[in-house]
């Protein structure tokens, strides 16, 4: 076993860390306060080739592996988890399904602009009545001649209104199978299609710089060839997309926890009470040691899931483990981080307070901790 990162992984980490510290850190507090999607930064990420990181070069991608992808998200979340989530949803949920099941024509049309960051990608699975229980969705798509006619509502969709151009991969019910169960299919809907409306951005506890909206489809018509992959494959596709998204969320958790560790360590060394630095109190040392242990373990399982994925091995269980562990570590690291910072940690100006609010989404989005544990239990030998 070898725990060394490749030369390209280290160079990529340097690049993203450098970029995040120079371009993202100075605006992170500002976009958190305003809820503005940081379009300028996202454009620059596109120019550096990072928004198409795992996609093939012929479709404008970088041809990098899943470990590189985890490193990208980790380093973004270390500075702004909201931006990290936008990038994760863009790549894992927006571009990746197209890369996996799109026709060459669909990829030319949509994957290339997604990879170059000229268009933002998203996925529409969740509905007001169906979250963890994805099968319960009721958005329908019916073939009318050469067009799909889509009706229904989606909610909490990341990137739905981000940037000037976008598309959403919508999970729909396209009919009934012979066994009487619903037939699901994913259909690609570009933003701006008549009958497809996006709401104003939703107000959230955290991750303010990430764009979250509700979608409504009213007799929304798209060409028949906007079907992604096979008709009837939608449910399976959605689960596969979530598998891949899981170590993405895990990587965000690792990055956020790492930030909490670094900031808390620095603060504990500088802040003096009772005549000595906080770090000299064993209670504080133990808190920091515990965060450090958890960050390290979260990173290991996340990288393991990424490596299994890139080697084409089964990784559902490991991805679920990484997701549940890293997200729960992030929530704890942020909480302890605020605690170490005391009253200052509770002030909006302290980045810890932002990380504390941001972390919670990680145990909910792309499958809650409860759902992850169900997945893990199902895969136990």
């Amino acid at each position, binding site marked *: 076993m070898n725990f060394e990162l490749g030369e390209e992984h280290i160079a990529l980490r340097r690049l993203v860390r450098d970029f995040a510290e120079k371009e993202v850190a100075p605006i992170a507090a500002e976009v958190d306060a305003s809820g503005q999607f940081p379009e300028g930064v996202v454009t620059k990420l596109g*120019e550096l080739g990072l928004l198409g990181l795992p996609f093939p070069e012929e479709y404008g991608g970088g041809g990098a592996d899943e470990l590189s992808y985890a490193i990208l998200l980790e380093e973004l979340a270390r500075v702004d988890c909201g931006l990290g989530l936008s990038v994760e949803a863009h790549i894992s949920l927006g571009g990746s399904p197209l890369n996996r099941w799109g026709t060459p024509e669909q990829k030319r049309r949509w994957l290339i602009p997604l990879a170059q960051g000229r268009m933002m990608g998203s996925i529409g699975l969740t509905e007001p009545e169906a979250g963890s229980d994805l099968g319960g969705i009721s958005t329908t798509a019916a073939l009318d001649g050469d067009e799909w006619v889509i009706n229904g509502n989606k909610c909490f969709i990341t990137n739905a209104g981000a940037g000037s151009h976008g598309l959403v991969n919508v999970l729909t019910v396209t009919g009934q199978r012979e066994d009487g169960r619903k037939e699901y299919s994913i259909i690609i809907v570009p933003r701006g299609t008549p009958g497809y409306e996006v709401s104003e951005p939703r107000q959230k506890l955290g991750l303010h710089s990430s764009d979250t909206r509700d979608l409504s489809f009213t007799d929304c018509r798209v060409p028949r060839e906007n079907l992604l992959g096979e008709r009837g494959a939608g449910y399976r596709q959605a689960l596969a997309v979530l598998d891949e998204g899981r170590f993405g969320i895990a990587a965000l958790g690792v990055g956020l926890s790492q930030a909490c560790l670094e900031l808390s360590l620095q603060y504990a060394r500088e802040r003096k009470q009772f005549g000595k630095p906080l770090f000299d109190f064993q209670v504080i040392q133990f808190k920091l040691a515990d965060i450090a242990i958890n960050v390290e373990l979260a990173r290991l399982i996340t990288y393991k899931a990424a490596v299994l994925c890139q080697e084409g091995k089964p990784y559902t269980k490991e991805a679920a483990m990484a997701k549940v562990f890293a997200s729960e570590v992030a929530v704890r690291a942020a909480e302890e981080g605020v605690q170490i910072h005391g009253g200052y940690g509770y002030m909006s100006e302290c980045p810890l307070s932002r990380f504390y609010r941001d972390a919670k989404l990680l145990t909910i989005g792309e499958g809650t901790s409860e759902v992850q544990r169900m997945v893990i239990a199902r895969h136990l030998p």
Partner: protein
Amino acid sequence: MNMIVCVKQVPDPEAPPASFQVDAASGRMVIAPSVNPVISPFDEQAVEAALRLKDAHGGKITVLSLGKDAVPHVIKKPLAMGADELILLQDDALEGGDSWSTAFALAHAIKKIGQYDLIFCGRQAADWDAGQVGSGIAELLGVPSVTLARKVEVSDGKAVVERVVPDGYEVVEVSLPALITVSNELGEPRYPTLRGIMATKKIEPIVWTAADLGVEASQCGVAGRRTRLLKLFKPVKEGRCQLIQADSPAEAGEKLALKLREAKLL
């Protein structure tokens, strides 16, 4: 156009000062293991200067670096930014040199490369800050040099260089081939791109030893030094605060100005 950029790997100058200690007995720097190696920032700007010319006129950029301890992901960064080729001078005989012996080895490597229109160096390396190597190479090669560039343009076999001076800049024209040292006023170097990083992974640096350069061991590295470091120490910095007492802000300002003039700071 053929360009050569000399770059040096140094300990990150942005690392906290406490990570740099002096071992007085041996006269050596002791650098904390937490300090990452980086390309000297002025050298990255030299790479950027070459890349801007490549963007405008095309051409080939060869990066040249001396040092045995070069770390692949660090020293290959100029390639990921857009340079074409990397040559490393790696040999025990080349280590431990001063500005003279470093310039000597680099000049021989440049002769071996042969074809060049422009050679770029950073204005000084961010570790020792001597700022001698660039001019030394030019001298040894017998080509003109322009130091402290903030902008470089090329046309009709000449380079026009904006050169930083204390109260502004001067414009210098120089025939090619020439050597130019680049100052930070040139502006931020570009980020490497993902595509660059991926492509760079497959590029193997060319490695030359002293023998490849055709130089005697006695002429380079420690043996070739013409200077000797007599003393290395951390200067003791003292901070003293003097409060200006006055009845009005205007009076305080005046008193402060007089004090500053007395201290020759104004």
